[in-house]
């Protein structure tokens, strides 16, 4: 491959949390050259979780969720409202939808996910919540008395249900799962979550799909696969996401699920070549985490863009410094602890580790009582790989430590 132009900037594609952290980390790791962040959204980086919870329940503004801008970021160039359309790894160029082609010295892939949509005709009243603009549009329709159908029962769908109830809407959840949050939490906890959500007035239609969304110009009702019809003003689709990888098609990168990276967050091609000048961060990165095993996985938890962004920035800065430190920086242990939380009504969930690695038989209550406050352990091969707190926080800390040390 031809050498990259050393005068060209490091180009970070994706202006959300992962891209921001990668840029900050490059600066903190001593890289003083040019950095350009290219992002499709017009908003500077912001924190997404409140968009389904606290901020959605009050005023949805950029100010309420914007990440603070650090002094060392002053000379970073932000190219917002521009979408990457193609990249040429050999020529070290990026093409964007404004028709421009730019050179890069190194590339950071941080384009994350977008919400999956149900395959029905576009009609007013259908919503997703991924971006700030999505949340603003939804907020305007969550008026008191509105009839809301939430499709999907992951954390996002359940949080949105709780917020809509808080705002005085009637809420039904429609899910193909047997129980809400079944896949991430397992049967034992999910059954208890169903009880709590139902107690809060959320009606749950489980084991069914949406057969149709009907209405002339706006949503009027949702028809389920079992024939049931729910009258509705608002439909919120929280049915998973797609990786934003289309702009990378045609490159030798391994795009089989997100973008494959090694433990230093360097991109890996389909033939196993590790690229020192292409990095992957955030939700889209499929990388091995030695805390668990050597399997590369994507982890859609809030802390991962920060952890991987910092890691990528440090490794890339060492590569660009060319001062002999690169091998040592790459070899530094990187085993980020996945963590997430979810607030729904008075239910406060907090978790560490990878709960999804575990089958239903290997989930057990460690402390407390599921119907009140509890710590729940998730085991794989008799090793603790995840812990969930229901209304418990400090009590989780010893278990978190145990997971970090290999689970024994």
């Amino acid at each position, binding site marked *: 491959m031809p050498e990259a132009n050393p005068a060209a900037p490091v180009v970070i594609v994706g202006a959300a949390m992962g891209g921001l952290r990668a840029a900050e980390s490059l600066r903190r790791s001593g890289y003083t050259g040019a950095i350009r962040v290219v992002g499709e959204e017009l908003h500077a980086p912001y924190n997404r979780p409140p968009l389904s919870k606290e901020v959605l329940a009050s005023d949805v503004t950029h100010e309420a*969720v914007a990440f603070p801008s650090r*002094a060392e970021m002053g000379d970073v160039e932000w190219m917002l409202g521009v979408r990457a359309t193609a990249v040429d790894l050999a020529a070290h160029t990026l093409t964007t939808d404004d028709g421009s082609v730019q050179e890069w010295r190194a590339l950071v892939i941080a384009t994350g996910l977008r919400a999956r949509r149900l395959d029905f005709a576009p009609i007013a009243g259908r919503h997703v919540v991924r971006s700030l603009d999505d949340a603003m549009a939804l907020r305007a329709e969550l008026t008191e008395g509105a009839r809301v159908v939430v499709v999907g029962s992951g954390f996002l769908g359940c949080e949105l249900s709780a917020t809509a109830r808080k705002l005085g809407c009637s809420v039904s959840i429609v899910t193909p799962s047997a129980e809400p949050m079944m896949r991430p939490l397992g049967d034992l906890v999910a059954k208890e979550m169903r009880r709590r959500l139902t107690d809060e007035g959320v009606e749950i239609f489980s084991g069914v799909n949406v057969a149709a969304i009907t209405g002339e110009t706006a949503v009027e009702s949702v028809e389920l696969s079992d024939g049931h019809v729910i009258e509705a003003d608002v439909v919120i689709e929280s049915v998973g996401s797609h990786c934003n990888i289309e702009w990378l098609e045609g490159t030798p990168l391994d795009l089989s699920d997100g973008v494959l990276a090694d433990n230093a967050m360097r991109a890996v091609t389909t033939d196993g070549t590790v690229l020192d000048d292409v990095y992957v961060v955030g939700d889209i990165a499929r990388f091995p985490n030695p805390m668990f095993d050597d399997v590369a996985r994507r982890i859609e938890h*809030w802390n991962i863009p920060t952890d991987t962004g910092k890691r990528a920035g440090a490794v890339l800065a060492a590569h660009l410094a060319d001062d002999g430190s690169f091998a040592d920086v790459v070899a530094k242990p990187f085993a980020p*602890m996945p963590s997430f939380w979810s607030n729904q009504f008075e239910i406060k969930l907090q978790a560490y580790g990878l709960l999804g690695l575990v089958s239903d038989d290997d989930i057990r209550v460690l402390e407390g009582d599921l119907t009140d406050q509890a710590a729940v352990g998730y085991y794989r091969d008799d090793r603790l790989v995840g812990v969930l707190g229901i209304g418990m*926080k400090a009590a989780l800390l010893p278990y978190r430590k145990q997971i970090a040390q290999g689970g024994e």
Partner: protein
Amino acid sequence: MIKIEVDMNQCQHYGQCVFEAPDNFTLNDDDKLEYVAEAPDSERDNIEAAVDVCPMQAIRIVE
């Protein structure tokens, strides 16, 4: 000296900061955050990491 402010109206006591800067942040027995508002300059990296990992973005360094 670094001065730290935590917006206790924002704080949901997740305790993520506790891992990054244990000298300044702790969760007490009631699962509530307690913090020391000053840190030596040598702690700056840890405090900045604590700011980054706060799910509610409730922590800030007063410059």
